[in-house]
């Protein structure tokens, strides 16, 4: 699997480097205009930067999902995919390598994003940031969260885990939709539209299962006994993710013409 990942990464490292260089240049340009040229207040400048980083995160996420999807569909729909599918690797290894490569790529995007965010805000606005955090408005907002640090950290951690598992399941749902379309429904017309419909059905099904489980646990009042809402969703997403992974790998191995 590591060898498969190696070639995926070699294939895309240049494109990633070019993309991240462009992001770096745009970030520098925005900083120069906002922090250097603008005559507005610090707060307005920070708000503008906040919008920029919000947009950047959205762009990163969309491109990440498109790229990970392409990693799989490109191999299935192009003859160059034979290079991978002729090798003595099971569907599990091939899919696993693509998901892990995608996660590494996502991690790289996230690290770059956090570095740019930290450099932009802490580097240029550390003084107004400190003032803002000490301001009455900010402290009163924070005090609204009735949590100690000991409670806040696990809360944030379980939130992050839930976000992470949800993103992985989103990728696996896309892979499963492509796999079902290319195998069980290979001989049906309107392939692209069909993939989209299957994807939406799988997302809907996932939502239904999640809400059913959460409602059941809620009724049993288990959340009050130390089981957190986010932990339940994370565990559920892991189970659904494993099911989607096994389904896709099985179809790739046993049912799919590539």
């Amino acid at each position: 699997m590591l060898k498969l990942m190696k070639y995926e990464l070699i294939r895309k490292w240049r494109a990633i480097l070019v993309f991240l260089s462009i992001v770096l240049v745009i970030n520098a340009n925005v900083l120069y205009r906002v922090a250097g040229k603008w005559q507005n207040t610090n707060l307005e400048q920070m708000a503008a930067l906040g919008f920029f980083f919000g947009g950047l995160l959205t762009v990163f996420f969309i491109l990440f999902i498109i790229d990970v999807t392409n990693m799989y569909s490109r191999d299935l729909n192009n003859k160059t995919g034979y290079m991978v599918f002729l090798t003595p690797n099971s569907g599990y290894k091939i899919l696993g390598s693509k998901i892990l490569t995608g996660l590494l790529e996502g991690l790289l995007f996230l690290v770059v994003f956090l570095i740019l965010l930290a450099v932009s805000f802490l580097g240029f606005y550390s003084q107004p940031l400190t003032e803002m955090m000490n301001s009455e408005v900010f402290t009163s907002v924070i005090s609204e969260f009735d949590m100690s640090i000991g409670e806040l950290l696990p809360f944030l951690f379980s939130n992050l885990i839930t976000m992470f598992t949800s993103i992985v399941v989103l990728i696996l749902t896309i892979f499963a939709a492509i796999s079902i379309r290319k195998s069980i429904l290979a001989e049906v017309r309107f392939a692209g539209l069909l993939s989209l419909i299957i994807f939406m059905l799988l997302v809907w099904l996932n939502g239904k299962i999640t809400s059913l489980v959460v409602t059941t646990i809620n009724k049993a009042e288990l959340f009050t006994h130390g089981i957190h809402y986010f932990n339940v969703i994370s565990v559920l997403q892991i189970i659904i993710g494993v099911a989607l992974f096994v389904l896709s790998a099985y179809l790739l191995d046993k049912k799919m013409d590539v």
Partner: protein
Amino acid sequence: MTILLKADNLTKGFFRNKALTNLNLEIEKGKVYGLLGPNGSGKTTFFKIAAGLFKPTSGSLIINGSTVGVESKKYTAFMPTEDFLAKWMKIKMVLDFYADMYEDFDRNQAQQSLEQMELREDMKVSSLSTGMKARLKMVVTMARKASLYLLDEPLNGIDLISRDKIMKMIVSSLREDCTVIISSHLVSELEAEWMK
């Protein structure tokens, strides 16, 4: 006689068309076979099922005692007609890829064959001509010490000089313990090349 490959009632359909219908076939170890037939007779479909790229609609295909899958891919070397080598790679990386993925890949033999085929490791796949790509496909396929070689239309659309080189390479790579199946719809051309 040892049977290396056995097809039992092998059938493959695409939409309403049947590419293969109840194919029964036995291929022995250590022999060279020609799979001859007109376009659309199912030669490529058979190869792709044997290589694990297509799944049969019904029937079975056994290679060396196991059904087509991860195990059979370890000792089956398939050369498709299509340009399947990644265009972004240089020839050196194609060799790296094969060396990483196949335990039976002989890099030294591949390097020697590259010279014979007038190819260099620093060439990019995307910059190769049709004939050069065909020669490269042949180099990496035959550099494997596989038990079964499936060569799909190796001479199709290839210039005379490349044909000669490709046929020489196939012959020089033959071993007593390997089986080769070469498909072609140009029966006379394959015969002529083989007789040389």
